């Protein structure tokens, strides 16, 4: 699937890079701050901490393994994509989703009653929604899994509230001037999901095929869902 998005810097943040930049931080004076000491490799510190917690009976190693497996393999944007596809094909479900997203999402099995309270905001021809957490990294885990690094980082968090159109442009999305942009800053315990517009030319697709088109970026609001390629396959 081609995107109109520009390729910009793609280097992944590495622990080694973090250690290097942390050395820069050491050069500054923080008389009122206790400096965090940054050893060369987090792996050793993490192993030591985990062993300690396990030895003290605070956590079970199997439990940690299961948590990792859940968020690496079981909970991710495919969940949100199914919610979106269901809303596209089933108007009654869409109405329930917009009225009480927590319950509607739970219908598909993606969050428990004790889970985060969800709100779904709908993109239309006239309204474009985009989600952020300017203060930290709050994100709708049950439907999107864990947030990407860019979502948690200073450039996005700082800019999208003040220059959402510029941020969307950087993602390759140019909005018409008559569209209203709504930025949702997740300052409390409500979690937001964008219901993107269904692209044109998808009438013949079934729910599963529609879900395959829906990207994480579209559900955060920094992209639109692209129509299937000319070849006909999503």
């Amino acid at each position, binding site marked *: 699937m081609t995107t109109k*998005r520009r*390729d*910009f*810097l*793609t*280097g*992944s*943040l*590495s*622990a080694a*890079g*973090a250690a290097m*930049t*942390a050395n*820069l*931080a050491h050069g*500054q004076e*923080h008389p009122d*701050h206790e*400096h*965090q000491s*940054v050893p060369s490799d*987090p*792996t050793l*510190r*993490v*192993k030591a*901490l*985990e062993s300690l*917690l396990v030895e*003290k009976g*605070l*956590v079970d190693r199997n*439990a*940690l*393994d299961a*948590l*990792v497996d859940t*968020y*690496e393999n079981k909970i991710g944007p495919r969940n949100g994509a199914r919610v979106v596809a269901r809303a596209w094909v089933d108007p009654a479900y869409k109405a329930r989703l917009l009225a009480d997203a927590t319950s509607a999402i739970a219908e598909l099995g993606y969050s428990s009653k004790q889970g985060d309270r969800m709100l779904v905001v709908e993109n239309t021809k006239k309204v474009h929604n985009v989600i952020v957490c*300017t*203060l*930290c*990294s709050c994100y709708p885990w049950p439907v999107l*899994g*864990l947030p*990407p*690094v860019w979502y*948690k*980082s*200073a*450039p*996005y*968090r*700082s800019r999208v*509230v*003040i220059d959402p159109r510029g*941020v969307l442009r*950087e*993602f390759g999305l140019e909005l018409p001037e008559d569209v209203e942009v709504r930025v949702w800053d997740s300052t409390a315990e409500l979690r937001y999901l964008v219901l993107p517009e269904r692209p044109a030319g998808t009438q013949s697709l079934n729910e599963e095929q529609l879900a395959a088109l829906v990207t994480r970026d579209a559900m955060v609001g920094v992209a639109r869902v692209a129509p299937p390629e000319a070849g006909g396959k999503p």
Partner: protein
Amino acid sequence: MNGVHDLGGMQDMGPIQYERNEPVFHAPWESRVFAMFLAAGAWRKWNLDAFRHAREVLPPADYLLVSYYEQWLSCFARFAGQEGIGQRG
């Protein structure tokens, strides 16, 4: 607090660094930190607000430059040590 974490509206923070096909965790140690953090939610002596604040009081340059899970590790380790998580009651 009026810390550097309160980023909304700040300018000149640089381009958005987008990684294509980004993995959930960039290294196994990140996933272990993440799992321990979730497991800590079952402990009675901490809460999410306190943990968020622990990150907010990191030295400002560290907050902006040190990787996300490295920050968590730092906060988490300090919290476990300071708050006596291992004690009863």
